[in-house]
């Protein structure tokens, strides 16, 4: 009797799964495997104290569809490589050393990787999360070119972006996401919009909101393109 009802439960369950639409399956996958670390629903960070940022486990994904290039997402989820050399909250992965602080690499966990099929499903679901399309529409950025030298001066000497970001695998700061891969990862308008006003994307961002005019943002975004295509 007991056995039979178990069997029944299994059969119903299998049928139930098979009946799930791909998008429902994708939502279930995100909920079960990703939501413990990533915000998948809009967060009102500004209403919490900044301590919230120190406790966040991972970058928010609730605006993933306004941020990432879908083809990058599908690849990365199958073979994730570190983007932030010091993790999502650098102070938690930093230890003092004889010549200054160093990143405690052993404390940085490997990211979960997905099968090709699951990566497709997850990416499709993430790309539907687009609450900030208005922010992208508001930015005045036409993809263009800049000489690498001029762009590099803007990124380094004039604006100090290299203090926190690497624009080459072996050059730059460690506390921000690597940017030599930014053009492959991110939508051009997201790049321009985030540089213009990072606080609008995340009130507790660790990136300072420099007062950059549109021409400066244009040059910096174009540099990330030219530099990224070089790599």
């Amino acid at each position, binding site marked *: 009797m007991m056995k039979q009802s178990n069997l029944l439960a299994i059969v119903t369950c299998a049928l139930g799964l098979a009946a799930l639409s791909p998008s429902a399956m994708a939502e279930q996958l995100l909920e079960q495997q990703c939501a413990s670390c990533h915000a998948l629903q809009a967060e009102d960070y500004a209403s919490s104290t*900044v*301590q919230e940022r120190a406790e966040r486990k991972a970058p928010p994904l609730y605006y993933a569809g306004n941020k990432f290039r879908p083809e990058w997402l599908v690849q990365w989820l199958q073979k994730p490589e570190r983007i932030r050399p010091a993790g999502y909250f650098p102070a938690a992965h*930093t230890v003092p050393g004889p*010549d200054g602080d160093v990143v405690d690499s052993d404390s940085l966990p490997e990211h979960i990787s997905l099968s090709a099929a699951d990566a497709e499903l997850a990416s499709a679901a993430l790309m539907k999360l687009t609450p900030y399309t208005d922010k992208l529409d508001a930015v005045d950025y036409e993809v263009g070119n800049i000489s690498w030298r001029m762009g590099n001066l803007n990124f380094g000497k004039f604006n100090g972006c290299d*203090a926190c970001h690497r624009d080459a695998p072996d050059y730059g*700061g460690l506390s921000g996401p690597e940017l030599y891969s930014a053009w492959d990862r991110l939508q051009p308008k997201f790049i321009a919009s985030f540089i213009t*006003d990072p606080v609008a994307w995340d009130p507790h961002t660790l990136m*300072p909101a420099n007062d950059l005019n549109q021409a400066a943002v244009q040059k910096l975004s174009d540099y990330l393109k030219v530099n990224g295509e070089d790599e």
Partner: protein
Amino acid sequence: MRYALVTLAVSALTAVSAHSWAADAEAGKQLYQIYCTQCHGINGDGKGINIPDMSVLPRDHTDTSEMSARSDEELIKAIKHGGKAVNKSVLMPAWDKNLSDEQVDDLVAYLRHICCDK
């Protein structure tokens, strides 16, 4: 004996509240940890994880003589408007869009604490 303990606890409490900076510096410490340690170091000694490729090193905020030579106004200006505003390096960012005036005051209280309350 119990009475003595109570007196002790009460006087400890008064001692804390007598220093009105205590609460601010505590909030400042948390802000410093989140925003500033990436360059100024987890101990405030100017040796954060970002320094290997930096052409100008971040100020050592535990350096008593240098830090005593700055007025609160100078520190506030540097934090809010960046190194450029005080004729220093652009590598010191402007934080006025990220932080409220109150948070900047908390940070200054914390800087005063780590530089000079030895």
